[in-house]
């Protein structure tokens, strides 16, 4: 006996929405079962993971803070993924954005440089991320090197550069030998939107990115070009769209947004450079992009859902002694359920018994 997938001729929107809901429920049931196997109450876990963060104002702010970098990066990745180009190195572009933007913050440290510092830092963050993203794009267009490998390997290069800088030349001389830079001046700090709040202006950048992307992908020739490149590459060449230009453009965009996420996080959240500035946002954003089906609004929602699993995971670690790995496992389960639901909406599954069908 074997499976056969036959495409469905029509799949109504109602079915797609229902499939998404079903995917979430299934993911929670599977996770609940795993938690039950570990000898904890799935009900209590659901309370800690989902209900408590959503009912506590501090957690809600934290949710937005955590969702911001993931949304920014995933929005950028959606440009690449729509065109079937696989930028796996957003984590590295995020780091280089933070490094280049952070460099200006350290150069102007203690100089009363003024209000131009922060905008220029953000711009440098975008440029740094874009340049780091253009390396795999250039290698692909010039030499045909697989972008998955190069973009991924450049993550480690970026992390080691950051590591070297904060342990060596950029280390705070008064920092008791801790591997970290000085704390950024107020002029180099991305401020909270509300006085005393946690949510910084990075969230506004993410919202703008969502809106602009919704327009670019849905309404412009450039957006159609990406869709055509992904769905029918020969037709894209026939349309006269240069594939090299497409590759360079989407890698610059996704690298730039990852770099913006990096410098926003460093300047708005951490306040200094240190060896670790991301709990893997650049990789989790890949999950976020696909959970949101490469749709800008979908990505916004997905980034909040995944941020919830991060926060819930932290409190579950404290309150239920559940390992943090479970959070990552749950993110994986969720993605698989959503992809499976998608497949079942688009295809009909047939069981073929041996000898039964030709």
């Amino acid at each position, binding site marked *: 006996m074997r499976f056969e997938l036959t495409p469905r*001729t029509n799949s109504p929107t109602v079915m797609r929405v229902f499939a998404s809901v079903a995917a979430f429920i299934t993911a929670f049931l599977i996770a609940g079962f795993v938690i039950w196997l570990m000898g904890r109450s799935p009900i209590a876990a659901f309370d800690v993971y989902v209900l408590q963060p959503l009912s506590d104002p501090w957690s809600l702010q934290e949710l937005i803070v955590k969702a911001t970098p993931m949304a920014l990066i995933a929005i950028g990745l959606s440009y690449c993924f729509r065109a079937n180009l696989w930028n796996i190195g957003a984590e590295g572009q995020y780091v280089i954005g933070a490094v280049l933007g952070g460099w200006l913050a350290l150069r102007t440290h203690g100089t009363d440089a003024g209000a131009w510092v922060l905008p220029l830092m953000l711009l440098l963050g975008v440029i740094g991320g874009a340049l780091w993203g253009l390396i795999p794009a250039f290698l692909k267009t010039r030499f045909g090197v697989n972008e998955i490998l190069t973009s991924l390997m450049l993550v480690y290069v970026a992390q080691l550069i950051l590591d070297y800088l904060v342990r060596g030349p950029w280390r705070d001389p008064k920092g008791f030998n801790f591997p970290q830079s000085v704390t950024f001046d107020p002029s180099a700090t991305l401020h909270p939107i509300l006085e005393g709040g946690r949510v910084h202006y990075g969230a506004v950048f993410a919202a703008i990115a969502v809106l602009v992307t919704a327009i670019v992908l849905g309404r*412009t*020739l450039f957006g*159609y070009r990406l869709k055509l490149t992904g*769905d*029918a590459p*020969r037709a894209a060449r*026939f*349309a*006269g769209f240069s594939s090299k230009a497409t590759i360079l453009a989407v890698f610059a965009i996704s690298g730039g947004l990852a770099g913006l996420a990096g410098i926003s996080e460093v300047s708005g959240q951490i306040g200094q450079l240190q060896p670790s500035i991301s709990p893997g946002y650049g990789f989790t954003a890949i999950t976020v992009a696909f959970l949101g089906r490469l749709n800008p609004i979908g990505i916004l929602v997905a980034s909040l859902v995944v941020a919830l699993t991060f926060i819930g995971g932290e409190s579950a670690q404290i309150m239920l002694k559940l390992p943090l790995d479970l959070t990552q496992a749950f993110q994986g389960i969720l993605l698989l359920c959503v992809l499976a639901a998608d497949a079942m909406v688009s295809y009909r599954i047939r069981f073929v018994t041996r000898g039964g069908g030709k």
Partner: protein
Amino acid sequence: MKADVPPSGQPLVELKGISKRYGDLLANDGINLSIEPGEIHALLGENGAGKSTLVKILYGVIEPSAGEIRLEGRPVTIGSPVEARALGLGMVFQHFSLFDELTVAENIAVALSGDWSLSTVREKLGEISGTYGLALDADRAIWTLSAGERQRIEIVRCLLQNPRLLILDEPTSVLTPQEAEHLFTTLDRLSAEGCSILYISHKLEEVRRLCRRATILRGGRVVATIDPRASSAREIAALMVGNAVGDIRTDAPHHPQGETLRVSNLTMPPAGLHGQALRDINLAARAGEVVGIAGVAGNGQSELFAALSGERLADHAETIAINGKPSGTMGIDARRRVGAAFVPEERLGHSAAPTHSLSENTLISHASTEVSRSGFILMNAAKRVARSIVQSFDVRTPEGDPQARKLSGGNLQKFVIGREIIRRPKLLIVDQPTWGVDAGAARLIRQALVDLAREGSAVVVISQDLDELFEVADRMAVIHQGTLSPLRPIGEWTKEAVGLEMLGVAQAEGGVHAI
């Protein structure tokens, strides 16, 4: 005209009344064919004559609608290639199925059914290589090998199963002449040992070199079984393309004006392993006329289309002039802006995006026209354009703005041709305009092409369908192995002459030189 080699004893394989129907199309119509033990039997025919269908039936890839296959007199059903191999049939396809990163021995081992250790494979490989002169290094990776060497692997794979019949589908299409000669020696030796060979080709010289009997297919039927050495190339060509003279065009003679397209000394290397080089092509199309390019598939048509459309660029701008402007180094969109339009052979994935709606599909070639403004898509304008194409070209579609893949082949072809004609191009280049299209749609498309020309545009039609070209073309040339014959008025061509050009023997018959 019958073969002078009488069938001796029991044939190895006998096909009786094999038919295959696809919808309205009869790809094979009551085909009878017998292959003697140790015989090299040729299967000749134009593209679309039904050769591949017949061979796939014999190799168990597709199931016949009617008819019987006998192996040594015993009726058999061949349900799959695995069963075919078990019965002693081996096949070497035109396109190889090899893993680039694996070695020769590994590639052979993965394809064999049963228990074969790598060392046994190496041993047998050595034996077979020695016996048949198929030199192969067992430990080389595939990506380092030439096409000829790759083909040897496919042949060795078959020979390891001790086949009684070896089927080769256009085996020399990827080989150099030297490699081809080497292959022929191997085949002669195999045949001397009693292995039958079914040799599919449209190259007459090879068939004459190898075979005593040839079965000629046209339109899914057997038209003759002959001894290719006893018949002239002229006779065989006539059999392959048919004797019937095409309908004489009845509309008023056109008055061609200036040259809209001029191609001068276009030469291009092949794009890949299976590609065809273009050699010194000269071509002109004048406003008001339809120029036809005939030829058997794989002789450089797609390469010529890519060069004309700008999907591949020429080295010099002057090589291709469109509307008098040197365009050889312009991309496809720039050529569109100087007044050209293009329709490639492949509908799904090349001229249209299957999962995109018809209105989105208009963007593919109208991107820089009325459907966009400063980078933004005017979706309503695109929908309007799609609707007017649907109406003007009688495209039968499901309700609304359906995805391109929901249209039948004929209707999608009407749409993509309509999409170009509605732009009123000064030059239209079409590759295989009615390939796989129903008769009604084909008639509408041909009429639209002629109408466009009569309104003062130049139309170039690349087609394998000779009847079509005789119907629509004012002047015609034949492409063979990347070389284009002189362009002559359609009245000066006979089907026989076209057939000879298609086989590349026109000059040989004329006594100039042999190919």
